[in-house]
């Protein structure tokens, strides 16, 4: 016989409730603590870009904007924590956002202007900005920002196209076919990714110099592709591994050639994987700094990161508003890309075939 002990169910329930509550409090405190340091710099960047004026070192507007942002972030998390239903959540978030918008318009609104984005229409903005404070010479000759923008798009776009194509094909082959050296190849894929790429910068420089691709966009693209490929292949192989053999065999017996089966049946199953490596590769190329800094010299080859670097170098002491504006401009494409792909990236962990 098992001894019966009386159980105080109410006490147990209370204890569980308290534990659940305190866990939630800790979680939200943590979320607020980590989200503020991430949100604040971006928020300042944007605020400065739209409010700073040449030669004026005024930080009052930053403090005022902070007075709006910090309570907003806290309020948003609180709303998320306290909402009992989806509807309440939406209403809470909307209310917080509306109040924040009004407060922002009142406190910061009067200081906003577009003058810092002068670089978009005035290639020689450095001279213009300097002349405002009486300096007339010594400005760096900047290329048109749209040219740098185009270079960046070209590098990131070409890199993405090549990486996605090559990685998909290579990963499919690695996933489906048995050939001598397959496992050592897989192992080396990971090892390749383990080394800091910067260590190779001198040999890469020499190689590019000898094959005559130094100071060309193609040279940088080749280098970036080489460094991005191993990991992309590895990721894609995981996605292909998750696609069952059956549907491929089924396509073959249904009359498809190997290539048709790959395109019409296998590729759609790894769509999320392709999207993920495409987004990450593009952003990687977009923010690339070290290699372009080393391998690109002429200012007609500048990318956005180099443009940003030289703007900071040249105008920072004169007008940090312009520097911030360039930063915001540099940021926008990444932001758009992430927002567009976010829905698919979230599914990445699911991968493979559903149902």
């Amino acid at each position, binding site marked *: 016989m098992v001894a019966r002990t009386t159980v105080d169910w109410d006490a147990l329930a209370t204890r569980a409730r308290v534990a659940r509550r305190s866990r939630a409090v800790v979680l939200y405190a943590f979320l607020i603590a980590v989200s503020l340091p991430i949100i604040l710099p971006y928020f300042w960047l944007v605020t400065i870009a739209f409010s700073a004026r040449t030669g004026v070192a005024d930080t009052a507007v930053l403090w005022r904007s902070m007075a709006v942002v910090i309570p907003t972030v806290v309020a948003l998390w609180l709303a998320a924590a306290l909402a009992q239903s989806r509807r309440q959540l939406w209403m809470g978030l909307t209310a917080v956002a509306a109040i924040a918008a009004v407060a922002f318009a009142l406190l910061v609104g009067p200081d906003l202007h577009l003058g810092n984005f002068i670089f978009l229409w005035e290639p020689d903005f450095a001279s213009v900005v300097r002349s405002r404070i009486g300096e007339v010479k010594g400005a760096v000759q900047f290329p048109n920002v749209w040219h740098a923008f185009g270079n960046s798009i070209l590098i990131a776009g070409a890199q993405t196209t090549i990486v996605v194509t090559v990685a998909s094909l290579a990963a499919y082959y690695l996933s489906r076919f048995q050939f001598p050296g397959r496992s050592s190849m897989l192992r080396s894929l990971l090892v390749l990714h383990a080394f800091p790429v910067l260590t190779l910068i001198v040999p890469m420089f020499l190689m590019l110099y000898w094959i005559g691709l130094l100071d060309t966009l193609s040279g940088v693209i080749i280098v970036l592709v080489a460094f991005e490929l191993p990991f992309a292949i590895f990721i894609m192989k995981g996605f292909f591994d998750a696609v069952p053999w059956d549907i491929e065999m089924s396509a073959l017996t249904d009359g*498809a050639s190997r290539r048709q089966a790959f395109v019409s049946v296998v590729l*759609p199953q790894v769509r999320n994987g392709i999207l993920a490596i495409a987004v990450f590769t593009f952003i990687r190329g977009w923010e690339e700094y070290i290699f372009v800094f080393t391998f690109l010299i002429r200012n007609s080859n500048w990318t956005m990161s180099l443009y940003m670097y030289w703007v900071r170098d040249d105008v920072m002491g004169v007008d940090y508003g312009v520097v911030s504006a360039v930063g915001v401009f540099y940021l926008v494409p990444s932001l758009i890309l992430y927002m567009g792909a976010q829905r698919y990236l979230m599914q990445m962990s699911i991968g493979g075939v559903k149902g």
Partner: protein
Amino acid sequence: MAKIEFRNVVKRFGAVEVIPDMNLVIEDGEFVALLGPSGCGKSTSLFMLAGIYLPSGGELLFDGHVVNEVEARDRNVGIVFQSYALYPHMSVRDNILFPLRFKKTPRDEALTRVKAAANLVRVEELLDRRPSELSGGQQQRVALARALVKEPQLLLLDEPLSNLDASLRLSMRTEIKSLHAQLGVTTVLVTHDQIEATTMADRIICMRAGQIEQVGTPDDLYLKPSSLFVAGFIGSPPINLVAGKAEGGTITVDGVRFPVEGASGSVTVGLRPEHLRFGNTGFAGRIAQIEPMGREILYVVETGMGALRVLEQGSSAGHSTGEEVRIGFQPENSLVFETAQQKLVAGAHVRAPI
């Protein structure tokens, strides 16, 4: 429609020989079942027929032509995979349409044929859904429709019913059988379920470790299993196999002696549970377990040679566990196997106990 022939077909995966030497003829329009335990090479044989695996040796013939090297897409074979292998990103309509895409069928005609195939397996209401929105049985029908829409000369079914529940399995069994009767396409069904094989197929090919053990009609395999393996595989509940000694025209099993013709030495006697009867003579034992099976009752009886399964009609038999019983049998139904070779002793004939 096609007549299929395996001539000394061998299949190896690396060093592993999965199918050592397969010889088999499947007649045009026939419905055969490949029956065997898991891992015996059923799917491998099927995939060779479909053209997914290349035979490592021997010849595979369709209508007398060697097709070893013919690619899967040119064989016009419809196949339903164990997992159904529907294309998850396509609607049911596109799934069924898929085989026609590569045949350059005009769009209108293709859609008509998709409708017809969908009607045949009764999924016409589901055409706009995704496979993930279908039940297992519906997916199975869609897979069947996709296999049938190209009017294949050979239909291959790889354990198509194993993912279905018992009642659905029963109805799909009937449906597939009537589909075959209606279309007359040569059909190979792979299964490890002997009931599926015996109820659906004209002929059963019983396989074991890559070898064909016996080919025959369901009755052949049930009444005259060529080996202990087939005898043990066919029949539910499974056959009782008891050791005996044949000497000078009598078999001694557990002390009971029977006259026998044509057997000698160490033998194994196969007694089907449905042929055993409680009576006043025969093997002595004690009922250890009673399992009602609806119309019949299965008794597990402990005897001197191990447990014997006895299947009796009717529920009012009035036996209870622990009861001492004696078990007799109809001698003409018993099977005598040579223990060493595990083969049926042809012509061996047991008579009622002395």
